[in-house]
């Protein structure tokens, strides 16, 4: 008999206060003064209840790079950050370019039980950018893949990109493009501008992102397909996407928490924790992506959670790996960058971190508004908390967070997935306990 | 609380006496080189040379110079970084009698370093030492040949030498002590 939970006195995104009863695999009741009979009570006084967060862009590293992260450790990090579903990027080893690999990832996610793991399929075989992967087979597999991406690499061949966009229409898929012209970014180390010239680091020009987005929105228009742009980082990209949307092109876009908060000047000390691709940009770019998220030009926030072992970051800048972990801190960073200044309210936050990513990724059972009969995927967040980030706040295998030592607002107090708790009182629950709860929920 | 121990005329008299003693012990000014240790030693060396040239008009024109010992010190990482001063030796020192001049003789470390510095410049026939103040407390078996004033002091006390060329005033004071 699965445990039922009564969340007592939570603030909903619209500002009302309510009790929420999770029972029988759904949200059974929403209202005030609900009976706690038989249910475990969670005091949510002062906490905001949001639908469980959905990350459209996570690197879980398994199979192949288990020293950085596994599906188990990555979904623990997800739960700690209030996520109940993560889309796992395809750049594993082997690459997720066949039905076999994506089904394996799905099964490992289900067994771990911390969050739904929805595999993303590679666009091209081995991410090589040469031949299309078996997109249809992955779509028809048990993993039900709808998002395809060569993330880490750009599908730079225009013809291949056109074909991929066209082909996935057959099963309502979407191509998520990592927009980076490879020739314009050869050896690139940081945003190209005044600072790169001073630091003597090879530049990653904004135009290398913007030119690919411009090309791809026109391709998507031409073939009538859905296009998603990963990690938009420049003001120019925002302008191109805004133009494309006004034209009616089916394009969606994401921004990462770090591109909402951090700027390139952090690189002055060559601390590789701040090395990421696309790179941290100028203050003007941060302002532009914040405004774009507020006005809907950018649809969602996605973490681009990219774990790396310490030796990949404790080294000289050129030799360091790109990427930052971001699942645990995402909600706090969104809070700090666009909620505290009033650009977004909590309803917007649930849209950009739950409803819209679930819709873009065509995933069921996630991103539903908190209401009777909805999937029991919920996060409770304490907006009045504040903490200085340390490695103890990270729940995955890697600690390459750019926020260590920085104070961020808020704290995830509890996460519920499939009706059971994965996080309670701010602590991630034990692996065995969660695996058992997941088995029971499936039964 | 600083107490003046030598005033302007005390210093002037001391230097005149030292100059006479140098001439006497060297039996004149032949083959004499007077090298001050920066910063105040250099000033004192120049003054002594002027006095000697007044007493003996045929004394060498290039009598005084400056010997920087910074790069020869043994306390490199025990004190703040010292900026070296130029070394300016007017003539070769081989076979000469070199009189080293410093303002205060204390532990003897500076003089020890000066011996090394001198050694790298050539082979002097003899080396003598002149100081304005000898305050005792030596760490090395070094003594001065010509002393302006013996000033027994506690190690916690500070001796301050002021010379008009550098400090705009001319006196020697002692301060501190009671801790």
């Amino acid at each position, binding site marked *: 008999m699965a445990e039922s939970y009564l969340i007592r006195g939570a603030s909903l995104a619209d500002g009302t206060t309510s009790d929420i009863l999770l029972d029988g695999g759904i949200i059974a009741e929403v209202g005030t003064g609900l009976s706690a009979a038989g249910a475990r009570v969670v005091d949510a006084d002062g906490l905001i209840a949001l639908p469980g967060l959905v990350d459209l862009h996570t690197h879980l590293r398994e199979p192949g790079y288990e020293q950085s992260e596994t599906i188990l450790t990555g979904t623990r990090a997800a739960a700690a950050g209030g996520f109940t579903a993560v889309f796992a990027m395809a750049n594993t080893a082997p690459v997720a370019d066949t039905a076999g690999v994506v089904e394996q990832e799905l099964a490992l996610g289900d067994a771990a039980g911390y969050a739904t793991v929805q595999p993303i399929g590679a666009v091209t075989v081995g991410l090589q950018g040469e031949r299309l992967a078996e997109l249809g087979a992955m779509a028809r597999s048990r993993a039900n893949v709808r998002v395809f991406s060569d993330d880490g690499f750009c599908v730079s061949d225009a013809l291949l990109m056109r074909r991929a966009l066209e082909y996935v229409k057959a099963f309502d898929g979407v191509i998520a493009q990592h927009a980076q012209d490879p020739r314009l970014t050869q050896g690139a180390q940081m945003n190209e501008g005044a600072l790169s010239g001073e630091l003597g680091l090879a530049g990653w020009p904004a135009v290398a992102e913007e030119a690919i987005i411009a090309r791809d929105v026109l391709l998507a228009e031409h073939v009538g397909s859905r296009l998603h742009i990963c990690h938009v980082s420049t003001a120019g990209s925002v302008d191109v996407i805004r133009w494309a949307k006004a034209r009616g092109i089916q394009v969606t876009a994401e921004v990462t928490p770090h591109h909402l908060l951090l700027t390139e000047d952090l690189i002055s000390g060559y601390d590789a924790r701040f090395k990421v691709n696309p790179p941290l940009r100028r203050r003007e770019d941060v302002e532009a992506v914040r405004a774009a998220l507020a006005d809907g030009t950018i649809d969602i926030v996605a973490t681009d959670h990219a774990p790396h072992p310490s030796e990949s970051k404790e*080294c*000289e800048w050129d030799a360091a790996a790109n990427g930052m972990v971001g699942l645990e801190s995402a909600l706090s960073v969104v809070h700090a960058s666009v909620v505290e200044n009033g650009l977004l309210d909590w309803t917007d936050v649930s849209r950009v971190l739950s409803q819209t990513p679930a819709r873009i990724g065509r995933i069921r059972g996630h991103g539903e508004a908190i209401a009777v009969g909805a999937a029991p995927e919920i996060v409770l967040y304490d907006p009045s908390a504040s903490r200085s980030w340390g490695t103890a706040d990270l729940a995955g295998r890697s600690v390459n967070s750019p926020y260590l030592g920085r104070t961020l607002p808020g704290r995830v107090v509890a996460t519920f997935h499939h009706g059971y708790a994965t996080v309670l009182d701010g602590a991630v629950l034990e692996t065995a306990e969660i695996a058992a709860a997941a088995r029971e929920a499936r039964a | 609380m600083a107490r003046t121990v030598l005033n302007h005329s005390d210093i002037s008299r001391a230097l005149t006496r030292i100059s006479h003693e140098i001439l006497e012990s060297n039996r004149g000014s032949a083959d004499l080189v007077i090298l001050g240790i920066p910063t105040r030693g250099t000033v004192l060396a120049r003054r002594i040379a002027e006095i000697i040239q007044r007493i003996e008009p045929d004394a060498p024109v290039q009598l005084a110079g400056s010997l920087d010992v910074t790069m020869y010190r043994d306390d490199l990482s025990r004190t703040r*970084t010292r900026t070296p001063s130029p070394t300016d030796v007017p003539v070769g020192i081989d076979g000469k009698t070199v009189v080293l001049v410093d303002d205060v003789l204390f532990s003897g470390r500076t003089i020890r370093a000066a011996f090394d510095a001198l050694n790298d410049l050539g082979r002097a026939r003899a080396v003598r030492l002149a100081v304005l103040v000898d305050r005792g407390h030596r760490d090395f078996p070094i003594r001065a040949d010509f002393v302006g004033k013996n000033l027994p002091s506690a190690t916690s006390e500070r001796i301050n030498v002021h010379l008009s060329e550098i400090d705009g005033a001319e006196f020697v004071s002692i301060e501190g002590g009671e801790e």
Partner: protein
Amino acid sequence: MRHLLSTRDLSRDEAIELLDIAEDMADVQLREVKKLPTLRGRTVVNLFFEDSTRTKVSFEAAAKRLSADVISFSAKGSSVSKGESLKDTAQTLAAIGADAVVIRHGSSGAPLVLAQSGWIDAGVLNAGDGTHEHPTQALLDAFTLRRRIHGSASRGRGLDGVRVTIVGDILHSRVARSNVWLLSTLGAEVNLVAPPTLLPVDLANWPVSVGYDLDDAIDAQPDAVMMLRIQLERMHAAFFPNSREYSRAWGLDDERFARLRADSIVMHPGPMNRGLEISSRAADSPQSSVLEQVANGVSVRMAALYLLLSGEKGE
């Protein structure tokens, strides 16, 4: 001085102090006994992840003339160049007891990473990092200019009002970057001349004027012209069409050299591509300071090592 990582961090007073000490060191180089006992018992490690015989020899000579023990660690070609991390190497050097590490590295910022890492307590001296900085080269260039212009009255002086034109691959040049910051700190006016492809895209923060035309720059009669070495690989990446075109537009050929004032100084950090960025007549003329630059390099590096290894830790 705890570390010497870039000229950008140097104040005018610090830079002049270093150049003045280098004058003292240069005086010592004229004596019969060229060695000083200053750094006796100290260990200086030359850690070169990139080949550079010239710079390495210069640092070795500087350290030895100050009586330091010198350990040269040529990382290039050994296990260190690929695979073994900077961290492991640094910890090894710490275990050996290095007091100062002179590091040449292909990655911009590597000396700063080493200095800030906590892997090693030694003072770090940047001997050239990627396309970032090469502070001792700029210091020896400034020293050379100061001596040429002020002679024996150099001590205590800057380079106020001196007009220096730097020509060539600014984008990839650590020598140019270090010179831009240092020369302007010392009061010089710096003019950069290069093909647009070999200039950083945004120079708004640099205290320089910029032009594309070397003839205009020569006609402005600078006090010094510093020619940078051009890497021929650059033409394969479309920075310029070929060496002939580069040389015609941006080389100091005989004709341009003849138009310089007779007391204009011709500088080059070496090694030179004769006939490409500089003609032999210009390089070998009395106006050329190329060999002085090499000799002054030892004095400047002695001064830098002295400042790095004297004083209490953390000063």
